[in-house]
């Protein structure tokens, strides 16, 4: 239970990382997040299985395409809606729906859409057998979070990201173009979610319906942790990951998917900015 709770927590953190990063920098809640997850997985499947490309090339190609799509989404759609939060949410959600429903209408259904695990087999940890793919997810998840931390704190571009996240007007006065940075944040967020898809989807099959589920889980993690806080994402992922496993183990598996939503509601009631978020702190104080 401890082992699988940990793995599930890292999976949740991976899923939500891109959403949190995009929102933290550009303040855009990318509701197309779930559809980009499915698209990333499906493109990888296409390059790998249909086109016969090597796994690494397939992953790179899929992640790049989804990244470009994320950037294009900002450049051609969101840039015109900046500041109109509701319009941003509706437009990204609409785009996500279009992507998912297009895939559905193209006949993406059934169980043959599956990415093979990077390394098959399982090993025993604390007396419980765990698939090696799950361990790869944990390793890759922690590695990605570390890379993001280093990128944001120790590179020029990362510092520019933080500058825009703190105040885009001030960032503009020191020569940082907030629109360009926001576009890049959408691109990086999209690349992150497609990478998480490549890591997670070998655990099952690729289904269009995953898009809605991933969006919901990302929202739950980010709202609980604080929309723009990477540390909050990790903390919330652990709360939800263990809550899901404990609920399933000791209460009822049928409630395991209700738990994230329930946690989200409780946190919204108690601390609307999330556990580590600052977004609404001022309003809360007032």
């Amino acid at each position: 239970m401890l082992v699988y709770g940990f793995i599930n927590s890292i999976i949740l953190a991976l899923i939500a990382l891109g959403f949190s990063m995009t929102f933290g920098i550009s303040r855009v809640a990318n509701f197309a997040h779930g559809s980009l997850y499915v698209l990333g997985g499906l493109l990888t499947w296409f390059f790998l299985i249909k086109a016969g490309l090597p796994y690494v090339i397939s992953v790179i190609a899929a992640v790049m395409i989804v990244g470009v799509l994320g950037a294009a989404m900002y450049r051609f759609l969101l840039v015109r809606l900046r500041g109109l939060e509701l319009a941003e949410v509706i437009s990204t959600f609409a785009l996500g729906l279009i992507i998912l429903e297009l895939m559905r209408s193209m006949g993406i259904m059934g169980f043959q859409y599956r990415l093979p695990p990077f390394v098959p087999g399982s090993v025993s940890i604390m007396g419980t057998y765990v698939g090696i793919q799950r361990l790869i997810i944990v390793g890759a998840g922690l590695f990605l979070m570390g890379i993001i931390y280093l990128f944001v704190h120790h590179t020029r571009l990362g510092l520019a990201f933080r500058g825009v996240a703190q105040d885009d007007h001030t960032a503009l006065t020191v020569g940082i173009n907030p629109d360009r940075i926001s576009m890049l944040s959408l691109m990086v967020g999209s690349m992150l979610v497609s990478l998480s898809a490549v890591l997670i989807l070998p655990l099952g099959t690729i289904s269009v319906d995953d898009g809605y589920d991933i969006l919901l889980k990302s929202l739950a993690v980010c709202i609980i942790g604080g929309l723009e806080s990477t540390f909050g994402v990790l903390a919330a992922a652990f709360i939800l990951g263990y809550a899901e496993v404990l609920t399933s183990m000791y209460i009822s598996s049928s409630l395991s998917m209700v738990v994230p939503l329930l946690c989200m509601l409780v946190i919204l009631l108690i601390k609307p900015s999330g556990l580590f978020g600052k977004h609404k702190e001022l309003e809360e104080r007032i």
Partner: protein
Amino acid sequence: MRRRMSLSVAVCLFGFLALSPAVSFSAEQPIVIGVPSSLKMLESSEALKAIIMAAEEINAKGGVKLGGTNRPLKVASIDTRGGEPGVPISDALLAIEKLFLEQKPDAVVLGPFRSEVLLAAMDLYSKYKMVSINVAMTPKFIEKYNTDPEKYKYCFRMLNAKYVVGYLMKTMSKLNKDYGFNKVYIVVQDVLWATAIGNGMKGWFEKSGWQVAGMDAYPTGASDFSSSLLKAQKAGAQVLMPIFDMASSGTLALQWKDMRVPAVPVGFISPLMGSKSAETFGNDVVEGVVNIAFQAGNVPLAKYPPATDFFNAYKKRWGQELQAGHMPSEAYDSVFVMAGAMEKANSLDPEKLIKAIEEADYNGSIGRIRFKNHEIVFGEDPAETAILVVYQWKNGKRVPVFPDIVAEGPIDKPNWMK
């Protein structure tokens, strides 16, 4: 001269067209077969193809003979999306009503994908006097039908979950007798048909000397089954009984393999149903798994040729083998049953059609089809009744193991259990 030649050509052409069966056929008003279902699910999308195939075969033989004319069948479908997670039943009902109002079908086959939608749609069928042969499986269908048979007489159904329970009971009895298995862990999808099978089996296990180590229901879309697998492992269950038709249940099979849970999966798990499953998930994952196809025909049967004929005809028509274990063959047969009833009644009048379906006796890909109390009777001999098929994955192939009359081998104890 030129004018006379043109006239001759025109007369010849007209004569040719008039004598051609296609044209005399198209002059007749088609009989519209409505297919309101959640058509972006594997099972129902393949079922729609099977329905189209059946209609094409009937049309190729001259259509439905009605009132001295041959009328072609026309398939009119609508995607109700009722099987997709999060889609409210009311939305699915609106789609069904839209089909009724706009396409004006003469009868319905396949029907709603989810039992929950079928139960609600029964009132719509009554309202529009729409004779229907449905596939959703909940036992509550017959409960509702029995509350007012006159009102719900328009509804027929191809399979009751109780027959799946019956087949699973006999399969489990074999496992008990042959290998001494007596401890089971049940995991089901939290939808009506699956929980009905789970609860039915749980009651039987408890009465039959089996120990039920646990029963968990997972919401549609769940993708982590570690808690159930851990509990099954801890309890020493020898059999894991999954009942799922959702895409993410593929994760259950993979997680079962990864966690090396020493229990044989015996039940209904869609992702491991089709012929491509071994290729998709790997031979090591599917090997030894016992799955139940809800009708013959969805799995070819060497000992019952009509099932194999349908399976092969589907592959020939659509260029690939069907992968669903539920719906295509029964949907295919239901078109023939409906067309036969129309001919027998010599009318599309609902009252006459109902009577004709009640008296139907048709040998199809799923076995002999006869209705009792508006539901098909299932048994174990396809010459007498419709049948389901239990099969086991052996060396990457699906080998029928029950009912005995179509079995091509025994249920083997998986190598890793020996």
